């Protein structure tokens, strides 16, 4: 195993993050604060508690998930797309680096970045609402699993994309709607019955719901189902990546 190679890629990617740390962290923190001001304070005061949780607290898990997913995808997609775009990927492809080592390096770095951003949002939220996390360990597991899974997904997008447009099309057209409609800012119990059923088809719903359970101990669906959902999505991403490397798809001509 060329562990050194995986570490090298990881460090290199983290260095890119450090160079842009200000943009990377400040933007999410400001936006989160705005969410709390608008949704938590202004609108939240008009909304009753949801399952005994104040609206301000209720949206915290959804917000963290929103950032965790989109940042994981964007970071991982960019991390592999950029060297492909400038051509510097040739170095990795001609080095004694296995697909596993490369994936660990790139995806590990992307997942680390989004986890850091997720934690920053959590800390920011503490300025606005107080929470008592019911199951901190489950919360940590959810954060890590989500970060890794969506980084794997972003990695696939980055390999697949051949131009900047394609790079952003899936995150904007698919993921953002799924996250918003997956109950980030509301409980699906608040929807008409038809839309509740539609929500059950949304994979993101299971994640947000499970994550929220780790905070408050209540959720729309059983926690086990959420864990199964995220593990299944992770397995699918891993399988796709294995196929990509096996066939050299878009990496080796």
């Amino acid at each position: 195993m060329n562990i050194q190679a995986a570490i090298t890629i990881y460090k290199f990617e983290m260095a890119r993050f450090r160079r842009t740390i200000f943009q990377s962290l400040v933007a999410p923190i400001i936006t989160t604060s705005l969410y709390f001001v608008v949704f938590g304070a202004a609108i939240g005061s008009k909304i009753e508690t949801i399952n005994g949780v104040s609206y301000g607290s209720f949206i915290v898990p959804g917000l963290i998930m929103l950032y965790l997913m989109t940042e994981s995808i964007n970071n991982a997609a960019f991390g592999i797309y950029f060297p492909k775009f400038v051509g510097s990927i040739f170095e990795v492809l001609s080095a004694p680096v296995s697909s596993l080592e490369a994936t660990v390096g790139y995806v590990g770095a992307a997942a680390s970045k989004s986890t850091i951003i997720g934690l920053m949002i959590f800390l920011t939220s503490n300025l606005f609402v107080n929470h008592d996390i019911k199951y901190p360990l489950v919360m940590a597991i959810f954060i890590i699993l989500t970060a890794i899974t969506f980084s794997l997904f972003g990695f696939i997008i980055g390999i697949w994309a051949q131009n900047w447009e394609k790079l952003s099309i899936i995150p904007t057209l698919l993921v953002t709607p799924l996250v918003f409609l997956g109950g980030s800012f509301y409980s699906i119990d608040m929807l008409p019955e038809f839309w509740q059923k539609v929500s059950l088809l949304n994979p993101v719903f299971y994640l947000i719901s499970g994550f929220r359970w780790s905070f408050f101990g209540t959720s729309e669906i059983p926690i086990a189902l959420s864990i199964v959902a995220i593990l299944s999505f992770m397995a699918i991403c891993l399988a796709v990546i294995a196929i990509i490397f096996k066939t050299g798809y878009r990496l080796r001509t």
Partner: protein
Amino acid sequence: MKSQISIENVSKVFGRHKALNNVSLEIKEGEIFALLGPNGAGKTTLISAICGLCRQSSGNIKVNNFDTLTHYKETRNQIGLVPQELPLDGFESVYNSCQFSRGLFGLKDSRDHIEKILKTLSLFDKRDEQIFGLSGGMKRRLLIAKALAHEPKILFLDEPTAGVDVSLRRDIWKLIEDQKKMGVTIILTTHYIEEAEQLADRVGIINSGEIILVKEKTALMSEFSKKTTFIRLSKKLKNLSFMKKNKKISLTENGMTLKLVGINNRSNELQSIVNLLSQNGIAFTEINTVDNSLEDIFLDLVETQ
């Protein structure tokens, strides 16, 4: 010398286009091998296949007896690659970029080694600068530094001096010779004949995906370095019926010039032809002899294909 890379019947097809057509080639340990060919001949494709950037459609490539597909870690470990273009992440610093290259090969950071290479390539002063601030020539030197960062045993240089100025070309040539002295096997592609002539131990000529010829450079030069002699006539000549048929002699420029290819000086061939001309009352104004360069050989071979 031991064979270090062996390429057996390798073909590469892009869609309908055959970029490599049944290429077989041996590279010997410690030699400088120049792969010479026009644009689009398949030089980059062949290098890419050896280094793992592309997969051949058929055939085998072995490096130190390891197959490049099944034992890619063993084969790539040995190889440093300087690509034809300048594919660099501009946001990285010069030093970190070299450190990255080294790390990919499983080696711990070695400040000494990387700084030594940067000094050899006159990049030491730039070590902390971001790459996008470097000039084109510096970027090319950086790519060489990156390729040397893991101390490879085999170095590939894909058109290392294309579009560089004269002084950098000299520097790169010197570096190649120094690497050879250290025992590194060097494969370079070029379409500058001068470069092959200057550096190579052996030359392979590739055209339209096929290796046309592989020879020791000196043998190639002497075999093909037939002189060509032009005798400019005072009057137009219709045919050569006045002399015995001879493949080496032909009429060109509408019968105004006699072209003699590969005339042997030792057997006084030129003298006897001149005598023959005077005996037949054919006057001439000028005799001009030129050496064949590798360039002529190359053009000859490529054109007769």
